């Protein structure tokens, strides 16, 4: 039987979301958030929203991750919780 791709994707999305807020290193959290955005983008493409998919990829996964990394570089990488 074919793998229900969207269910697998959604499990990955939840794992990424939980991981990005649990990890103590802020740079890793920003990277995992970028991975979360890319998984979201693939799910939009699977659901037929191709325009939303490439907007999310370029804007949220691309520029959003750049903004996060820039902010973490200018502040601090450590986080207490």
């Amino acid at each position, binding site marked *: 039987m074919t793998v229900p791709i*969207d*269910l697998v994707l*959604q499990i990955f*999305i*939840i794992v990424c*979301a*939980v991981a*990005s*807020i649990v990890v103590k290193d*802020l740079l890793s*959290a*920003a990277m995992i*958030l970028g991975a*979360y*955005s890319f998984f*979201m983008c693939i*799910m*939009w493409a699977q*659901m*037929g*929203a*191709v*325009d*939303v998919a490439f*907007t*999310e990829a370029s*804007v*949220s996964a691309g*520029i*959003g991750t750049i*903004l*996060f990394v*820039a*902010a*973490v570089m*200018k*502040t*601090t990488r450590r*986080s*207490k*919780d």
Partner: protein
Amino acid sequence: MIELVIAKYNYWIYVILMMIGFYAMIVKTNLVKKIIGMNIFQTAIILFYISTAYKMGGATLPIMTDAQAHGHEAVLVDGVINPLPHVLMLTAIVVMVATLGVALAIVIHIYRRYNTLNEDEILKVMK
């Protein structure tokens, strides 16, 4: 009951994601983690809108190939997915990244002043 969960799992996932983001915004004391939570919260809402537009059972994208040839032809709505929420979500994604930019700029400002990104320590300094 069980088919309620299985048939509409998209909506369950969106609620779980929204609550994860909400939890991060409220409970985490690091400011950047709060912003990450805000991002997850807003993308969950986008997931909600897109899943309302999707139709199972072989629905395709609304691309009309032979409209010019045959003129006005009725389109069977069951075969195409609804494109309006996609357009609304383009706006929502842009708003999300704009809010992200403003919030991160303010976080850099806060760090320069207080030298910490932990909300409890900032409140202690402000008292």
